[in-house]
């Protein structure tokens, strides 16, 4: 089993939830959108933090460099977070056009980022971490779990 095996599937999960939120927004169903988008936010935050706190440090330790691809991926996570903050605002304001523009931008950013990870970074991580098992599935599940109320 490859170290990063669960991550591409989790990308798809996040994509699916995101397009559901976009569909609700385009139909003007803002309450449903807010709910679905909240779910997306939890999943993507879990994904980013699992990568930044578990996968990337392990890869950086193995490769001896923290200034290479992982640095760029962290930067892109931050860029996507900025777009997600903008989406929060448009949902709160029920602003369809604002949502559509920010969603389109985020979608391209996210897909481009995912493809770079899946085609280049994850295979590099799998080679560097060959034989090691990281608890990525568990980390994703724990970090995405809604806070107990």
């Amino acid at each position, binding site marked *: 089993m490859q170290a990063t095996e669960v991550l591409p599937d989790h990308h798809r999960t996040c*994509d*699916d939830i995101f*397009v559901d939120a*976009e*569909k609700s927004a*385009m139909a003007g169903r803002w309450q449903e959108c807010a709910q679905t988008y909240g779910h997306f936010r939890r999943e993507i935050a879990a994904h980013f933090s699992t990568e930044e706190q578990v996968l990337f440090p392990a*890869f950086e330790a*193995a*490769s*001896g*460099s923290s*200034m*290479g*691809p992982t640095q*760029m*991926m962290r*930067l*892109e996570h*931050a*860029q996507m*977070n*900025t*777009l997600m*903050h*903008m989406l929060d605002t448009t949902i709160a304001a029920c602003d369809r*056009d*604002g949502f*559509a*523009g*920010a969603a*389109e*931008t985020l*979608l*391209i*950013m996210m*897909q*481009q980022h995912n*493809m*770079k990870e899946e*085609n*280049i*970074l994850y*295979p*590099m991580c799998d*080679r*560097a971490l060959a034989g090691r098992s990281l608890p990525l599935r568990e980390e994703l599940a724990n970090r995405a779990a809604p806070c107990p109320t």
Partner: protein
Amino acid sequence: MIRNDAGVHPNLSFDQAPPFGVPLRFLLTAPWFGVAAGLLLAWSGKSAVATRWSADALAVTHLLVAGYLLQAMSGALFQFVPVAAGGNVWRPRLVAAIVHPLFIVAAIVLAAGFLSFDGRLLRLAAGLFAPAVLILVSIVGMALLCTPARGATVMTLRLAVGGLAVTVALGVVLAEGLAGSHGWPLIAMTNVHAAWGLGGWALMLVLGVSYFVVPMFQLTPPYPASFARWASIALVGVLVVWTLQLSGAPPDWLPLVWLAGFAVAGAYAGLTLSLQQRRRRRVTDPTFLFFRGAMACLFVAFVSAGLMLLWPDLGQDPRAAWWLGVLVIAGGFVSLVNGMAYKIVPFLCWLHLQRLAGIGGIVPNMREMLTERAQKNQLRLHFVAVALLLAATFYPKAVVPGGVVFAVASAWLGWNLIGAARRYRVFKGRGFARVASQGS
């Protein structure tokens, strides 16, 4: 340099994009060749429809393929090679600064050479294209060869760059022939040159880019691995066999090879339409509609080619070349480039502003850079132009309004893209607010 001991390749680019001006200069230039081609069509009237060998038809075709498409596709290469293939293009700003003006002048001189049938101008155009393409192919080809990334997109982009080199090499030999330097078979060579340009370069590049962007824009399933692996190999096989006609009298089965080339385009178009039917993202935006229109045109071109082979009278009608040319170039490739430009330019405006603003900086999103309404209105006009140009096959007078509308639609695209770049400049000069939770 990045360490190499854990699979981190020294030639790997993880940057998101080359400097903004590099792809932008090509993409902002491309539509104006469409304006020139449309106006020339309207001015020349029926003669462009009557035969592909008329001076007007040759000039219009080359304004579109060596002007419009070459500009846009070169800009796309500079963008996609680092982003999609992890390739490190050596000094992209310098390379673009050399190649871009050479391409502009070369395409204009080439069209002037056809219009005036002046062999010296054709030779001059060849002399400008050859070094520019040599530089582009060497630098981008090296980036694609050195990248550690693997997969269908990388392989197909490599083949496309090779296809461009073959196209231009044949073009140079043709220009020399038309200038009277040799007596090689010019018609066969023209057919081979056109096939490598439209198939080996344009279609190949579109295949490689589609594997990346079609699933990305609409969240479709990926292209089947077998198709992605074999389509480009089949296309190269078809082109190599097609090229054999240069070595002697064309064999009887050559038309089947011609049809096989269209079949690759038809299979790609049919598959793309089918994948888009299964898209997870149901939002319909102008780029999606441009893609659908382009795929429909390529598929109709394939069906038409089949019918022309079944009924040779159809294929031998001089207007057949016009019909196929409009479907493939204006309806297929120009539509694709148009649609892609509507994603690439606004996204790059956002991306580079975002970098300037820093993390947490609020910058206008893609639709604030270029409104969807402006894109949709231009899209309608573009497809009206394609329909009029197709109608000109049967009613040659339609070429005049068709040419005018095509020119206006191209100018509108150019204006829309310039508008996005202008907004980038305005926002860049204003400074940036910051999102509340990350604000300073």
